[in-house]
């Protein structure tokens, strides 16, 4: 990744490569935007109104955090909002880590930096850092980030309207959809034995605490399971590095 900005800054991007990056960014945008519909539907099922749902997609704009927020207020209502904020914020830390890696690559300042920060998410980062050329990386970041933003917001609106029209969310299995959504968000991260260990411990902590404390708190407490990662991975020293580049 650091090798990217050594090369070819300032040169023109080959038209073939340019088209390729556009296509890649837009296809990620379409694929990611599509599941904004599930976010919209689940958010209104969790008790948010249409505008609150839309505000999360437009202003928070980071899928995992948005799902966490509605998951917790869906279970605990207004009383669970502090826990919902804490959980969505902890999930948002990774965007800050992406930004650390992107700041040199993108070379943005002022207003552009604010815009870049807003669209710094899993998908835009992944497309940017997978390019072998700094111009392609910048183009990939913006095309992906902006297309996800537009489609994610449009699909959120569609989902919220559908969700409002559905009536009883349980009858349509929307609670099952929420569980499936969290499973699908977690799945790609379970790449190592350590990751699985952390996930299992977190699940046990959360379920164990659930009967005793207010809704949302078990999820925050389970974040402590991440401390298992403090010590180095058991296998070769290279493992952490490999995992990082894969994620």
């Amino acid at each position, binding site marked *: 990744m650091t090798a990217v900005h050594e090369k070819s800054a300032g040169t023109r991007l080959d038209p073939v490569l340019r088209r390729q990056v556009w296509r890649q960014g837009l296809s990620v945008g379409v694929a990611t935007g599509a599941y904004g519909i599930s976010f919209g539907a689940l958010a209104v099922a969790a008790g948010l109104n249409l505008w609150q749902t839309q505000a999360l997609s437009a202003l928070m704009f980071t899928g995992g955090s948005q799902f966490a927020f509605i998951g917790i207020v869906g279970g605990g209502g207004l009383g669970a909002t*502090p826990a919902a904020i804490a959980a969505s914020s902890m999930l948002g830390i990774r965007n800050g880590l992406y930004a*650390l890696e992107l700041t040199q690559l993108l070379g943005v300042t002022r207003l552009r930096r604010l815009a870049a920060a*807003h669209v710094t998410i899993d998908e835009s980062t992944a497309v940017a850092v997978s390019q072998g050329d700094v111009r392609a990386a910048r183009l990939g970041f913006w095309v992906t980030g902006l297309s996800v933003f537009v489609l994610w917001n449009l699909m959120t609106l569609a989902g919220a309207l559908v969700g409002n029209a559905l009536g009883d969310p*349980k009858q349509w299995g929307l609670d*099952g959809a929420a569980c499936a*959504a969290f499973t699908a968000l977690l799945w790609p991260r379970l790449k190592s034995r350590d990751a699985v260990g*952390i996930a299992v411990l977190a699940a046990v902590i959360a379920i164990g605490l659930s009967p005793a404390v207010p809704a949302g708190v078990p999820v925050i407490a389970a974040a402590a399971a991440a401390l298992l990662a403090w010590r180095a991975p058991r296998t070769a020293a290279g493992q952490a590095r490999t995992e990082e580049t894969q994620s």
Partner: protein
Amino acid sequence: MTMWVAVLVAAGVAFALKLAGYLVPAKVLQEPHVKRVTAALPIALLAALVATQTFTGPHGSLALDSRAAAVGVAVIALLLRAPFIVVVVLGALTAALLRLAGWA
């Protein structure tokens, strides 16, 4: 706290975290222990969300119902490399059909 305040505060924190990465010196977060723990945070939080959304009922009591079946179907779909939206729809279908069949 009203829902609006919560939505705006959470969105503000999310943006601040993104922006911070562009503004702060990277030293603290580059420390290997801290880096590993922050990378592991989403795993712990998402696993906890799967667990509580699936296996708890009212007031945090343990529950085993159609949601667990929805997660089972989701895992099978993920093993078959189904896209996110397909996994979510299958989860909804599973829960809805089981409920229709009379299983909570």
